[in-house]
């Protein structure tokens, strides 16, 4: 199992934002977390990525046979060592830097090692130059894939919204993650762009075999790409299973549409 979340709870003062949540995500699968607004989806993400400390619970991520317990790790180490990459609900690109630079920054850890904490880099040693060329090639491969190669030298902040969303996913992928967490990747996209996004997510899953964890409100996307859907309501899990089963689950329908009048 790639990611195992067990008995996760987080309390903000009197509010129990996530209440005893357990679920799992497997490598090579897309797992979606859905639920009405305020159900605690983004809070779960923020626990996974180290922005919040869970009050209770265990978050185990397995990478290359080593299990990392995310609840004990600093945010940057979760990304660097445990291999969990994320995107944000409101895009967080390095807006003033170029598209290419955004992807090269994401490869900071291997480049930093290659530059021997800047010493080899300052001297311009061949080992570092090779690493840099490799990083640029990898970035270009991703840019080609998301159709932004022609805009590699433009400022990321000047890209159209849909392109920024794709670039953020490519940037996360450049960190070589074991698990990719996407927070509402289709928000603000039109139907055509959502379709392209679905194709991209499927391709990432099938080619790299990494796990994808997805928060999304767009049901067409969720039902279209997910292998498994976890439904939250008021911080509690109310359903967990394949998309078709979840779609017909009585508790889920109740949470989304409200209870039918008894009369």
């Amino acid at each position: 199992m790639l990611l195992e979340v067990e008995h996760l709870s987080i309390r903000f003062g009197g509010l129990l934002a996530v209440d005893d949540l357990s679920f799992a995500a497997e490598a090579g699968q897309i797992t979606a977390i859905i639920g009405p607004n305020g159900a605690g989806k983004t809070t779960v993400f923020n626990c996974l990525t180290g922005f919040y400390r869970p009050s209770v619970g265990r978050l185990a991520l397995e990478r290359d046979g080593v299990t990392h317990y995310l609840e004990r790790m600093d945010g940057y180490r979760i990304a660097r060592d445990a291999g969990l990459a994320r995107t944000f609900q409101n895009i967080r690109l390095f807006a003033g830097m170029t598209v290419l630079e955004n992807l090269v920054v994401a490869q900071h850890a291997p480049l930093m090692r290659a530059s021997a904490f800047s010493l080899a880099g300052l001297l311009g040693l061949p080992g570092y130059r090779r690493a840099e060329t490799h990083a640029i090639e990898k970035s270009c491969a991703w840019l080609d894939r998301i159709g932004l190669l022609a805009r590699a030298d433009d400022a990321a902040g000047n890209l159209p919204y849909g392109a920024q969303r794709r670039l953020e996913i490519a940037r996360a992928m450049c960190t070589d993650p074991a698990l990719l967490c996407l927070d509402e990747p289709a928000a603000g996209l039109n139907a055509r762009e959502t379709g392209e996004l679905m194709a991209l997510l499927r391709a990432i899953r099938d080619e790299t075999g990494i796990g994808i964890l997805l928060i999304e409100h767009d049901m067409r996307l969720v039902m279209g790409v997910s292998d498994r859907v976890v439904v939250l309501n008021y911080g509690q899990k109310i359903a967990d299973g394949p998309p078709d089963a979840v779609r017909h689950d009585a508790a889920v329908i109740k949470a989304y549409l409200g209870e039918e009048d008894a009369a």
Partner: protein
Amino acid sequence: MGTRVAAALKDAALAGFVALVLAFPLVGFATNDEGGPSLAIHTRFTWVLLGGAGVFAARLVLTVLRALLPHLVKVGRSNSPARLAGPRRHGARLFGALLVAFAIALPFLPFSSRYLVDLGTTVLIYIMLGWGLNVVVGLAGLLDLGYVAFYAVGAYSFALIARWYGLGFWEALPLSGLLSASFGVLLGFPVLRLRGDYLAIVTLGFGEIVRIVLLNWTDVTGGPNGIAGVPRPTFFGLVLLPRAPNGGATFSQFFGLSFSPDQRIDFLYFVILALALVTNAFSLRLRRLPIGRAWEALREDEIACRALGIDPTRVKLSAFAIGAMLGGFAGAFFATRQGFISPESFTFQESATILAIVVLGGMGSQMGVVLAAILLVTFPEFGRAFAEFRMLLFGAAMVAIMVWRPRGLLAQRAPSVRLRAAAVAVEAT
């Protein structure tokens, strides 16, 4: 049309009125010492009227020009986020090379003078300080109002090392840089969680703490009396003095020249020029390395940095340390140039000037720092002809620059890595 003329007249009248009100106390009265027990006050109301009329006319002309030539006057043109350098990069490189050539030739030019070379030395010190602060403020986006502290640490480190251990400038220079860098880390630790305004306040306090410690720790720093007799730099062991202190050769004896104090001035100029060029190469290089990109990424978005596995602590501390080290080098040079240092040289005024150089030049721009340093250091000098209006003009010039170029003189950011340049180079071969 008529309404536009009326509006323009009204606008100009308002500007003229504001100028009158401001000029009344500032220009309208002058005090003169006529030998008596008190100062005599003169009034110069004609000047006030002339000034008001001048502002009225200038404002009117400006409005008309703006209406007639909209494509010539575009306010805030460089306001868009991150305009990237385009084909003008070659021009910039050529300009840089010309500037360096001019700097090297300066002491030998026919119109050169001792005063000019000395002024050039001061400009270069500020350029170096500007480049150092540029790492912290321009690249890493950490607003530092106490940068002068590192300048002071560098200067005092060198002075004390020279006094206690008898080391010369060249041996003590790296040590001063290292000591400054460790002070940078020392400042960095407590402010790791702070950003923006809060960081600015703490760094401001740090700068004052360092100055006040220097002022009061009389046993070590000499307090307000400072430290005198800081050794001068040598040219590969040759001193630039009329007579060598302990029987060695002097520069002029060795080369068979007659001694002239100008040699020392010129030598100091070349030392700081070399230091500045090394600093420039060093920081340009760092900017293209992962650490430099991480600094800029940190400036853009710290949360995104963390999500990409970049440790913000290390990135910030390295920016503080590198910036402080460069400031320390400048400080050590300052000490050896003056031969005497005291806490008076390291007031908040200095921090403000260095920050103004970075902001005015355009955050993160190396060339911008050069232009702004030249402007900020030489303008008050050339402005001496305007006597008491010098600082007024200086302030007006700064306001004007910030109005016309709100992101600094050179707001364009050159990418640390570009794809098209590489592709073009391949096509050319």
